[in-house]
């Protein structure tokens, strides 16, 4: 059962990384324009401000 002492923190840590990544994306307006993001990927132009700053 000692393996739990390793696995539980690891799983929590990984989940936490995901959660932080989600926060970071929220903070950077990455959910503001889902349609735009879907279309911009088709364009050759480099998107220099994915956070939607004008």
């Amino acid at each position: 059962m000692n393996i739990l002492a390793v696995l539980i923190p690891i799983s929590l840590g990984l989940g936490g990384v995901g959660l932080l990544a989600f926060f970071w994306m929220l903070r950077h307006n990455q959910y503001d324009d889902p349609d735009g993001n879907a279309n911009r990927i088709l364009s050759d132009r480099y998107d220099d401000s994915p956070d939607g700053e004008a």
Partner: protein
Amino acid sequence: MTESPSIAVCPACVAIPTDRVKSAGEARSAQSRRIELSLPTIHCAACISNVEIGLAKLPEIEGARVNLTRKRVTITVKDIPGIETFLIDLLTSWGYPAKVLDSAALDQELVDKAGRDLLARLAVAGFAMMNVMLLSFSVWGGAEGATREMMHWISAAIALPTVAFSGVPFFKNAWTALRVGRLNMDVPISLALILASGVSLMETIEGGEHAYFDAALSLTFFLLLGRYLDHRTRVVARSAAVELAALEVHRAERINADGSRETVPMDALREGDMIAVAAGSRVPVDGVVMEGRSELDPSMLTGETMPEAVEPGTSVIAGMLNLTGALVVRAEGLGEDTLLQQITRLVESAESSKNKYTSLAEKAAAIYAPLVHILSAAAFLFWGFYTGDWRLAVNIAAAVLIITCPCALGLAVPAVLTAASGRLFRNGVLLKEGIALERLAEVDTVVFDKGGTLTTGKPQLLNGATISARDMAVAVAVAQGSVHPMSKAICAFGKAAGFIPAVLNDIVEEPGMGTRAILDGQEVRLGRAVWCGVESHDVEQSASWLRIGTRPPIVLLFEDTMRAETAETIAALLDDGIDVQILSGDVPKPVQDAADKLGVKTWIAEATPADKVAVLKRLADEGHKVLMVGDGLNDAAALAGAYVSISLASAVDASRVSADLILVGDDLSQVVKSLRLARIAKRRILENFTIAAVYNLIAVPIALMGFATPLMAALAMSGSSITVSLNAIRLGRKS
């Protein structure tokens, strides 16, 4: 702003050098400002590139970013006067008609913050719920002793901070309600959350068996989900309403003392200002005509479809459509006395006299919240005195609260409203507030405005077939030169009947009078009675006269045409057992004709805005739940005062603001469809309440008897929440 890495394969990096981007970032000083433009026609990756690259080439522009989801572009630009008009013209010339979004867009951003806050709390709750659920599996599976204790402690470490963070919206609401001595749905929620966490912590410390951390967290998660859905629905509706408001022009062309012309916002106008009103645009302010002759269409204001002739000295009212000639109007009475102000006051008084509607969720909460508290307290006292074991008593009380917690109730309404408003939106109907849908479901009487609502607001030639082909050919030829709605109607008739227009010379449009031309050396006139030499006549409806040479003038009769879907819509409403009435500001004859044609028994003509409110008030006093459908400024107060109201996208601003629903597609048949959908939605909400109640009926006795386990709580909660959500989604899918 991130730096562009210099990747050789990326053409944009060559097009936009890094230093330019940087300097743009630095240049954001007081000299620059942000403009938000609505671009309704953008739809693809190429559109984004065209707009962004095109704008980036201009020296005045420091940055431009398209948001395809909202169909907008945000531009950071040097603050130069008139830059907005310049940008609009430029974008329109590229094939993207643009409109400026006013400061309302700023409020939008604040709303977004609230949504983001909810989403963050939802994410934390979801993360914690899944982890604790996984840990709980081992406990449910029979872990004992040290293993169970470890699982409980880890769960506690995750759950307590999460509840403290994610539960804030509920705690806040509950506190607000408690402070004024009221109970809302959030009070039992908060109590359940706090009690569940506290009891579970106690159990954990004492090495007990029953910890409800997973239940507390899933409760938080599902309830937050309901809140978030609710919030999304409102944001989508509000953002669409901002778009619609942006389509309204709030500018006027002022003529300065030196004769120069300047486009200024409406609130910059002062009394005595000279304002130019071009043919085809609306009169921006109340005032007096100083120069020019024309005809004005007052249908938006009064419901009358007969154009009014104006000449220097005539008073005009803001909102009238200028049909034929350019006018110069002197602004008067910008303050309290304008018609718009009077209407605004009527709207306000209609709104304030309206009874507050208690939503289904509030009704449910009013019964539910006290019941839950009484049950839980009774269980606590009974078990406490019966066994003398107060720890057990608290445990059971907490179990009762958790199991009865209005998880499904909290989701039942928002999930249905989200699904319903999503479907309405796809049908081209904008629902401004979720609970308007509940009111719509109860409607038993529909009152329609006529001009612009039942009808298209455009006249059609009635007696074209009785006029000789030769004369019609002349009429069509004269009418071709004019943008007047009656001329357009003649052209449309001529085109449909296949007339070949006669050959005319010297076509001249006399503003406010008509059009004249030369046919084989004879003068032809098409226009007003007096101008064509008609001294007196007994025609009661919209009419034009055609005079060829010295022959007696021929009368052309016009009528406002019904929308294609009107007859079908009214028939469907009557079929559904709903009473239909017409309430119009127009003269009796056309209203009666329309009512007869549509099979509507009750109609009222020549109603002023105040009359309309009074009629609705009388219907409400008789116990009817009235849906008002209208578009004009004269309908605004009636829309605000009705039980529930629908306006059209082509309606004036004041009407759209007052109405609960807006037909974005201007498709009247959606009135019936929305009504039916509202009824289904209400049924779904009640079904959801029933489902939640059945779950409780089974689970509560078990909890009261003290047999509840954390596993049962988790199953009951997830089970009811998922059933309720699925039942709601059914509404969005079925077409």
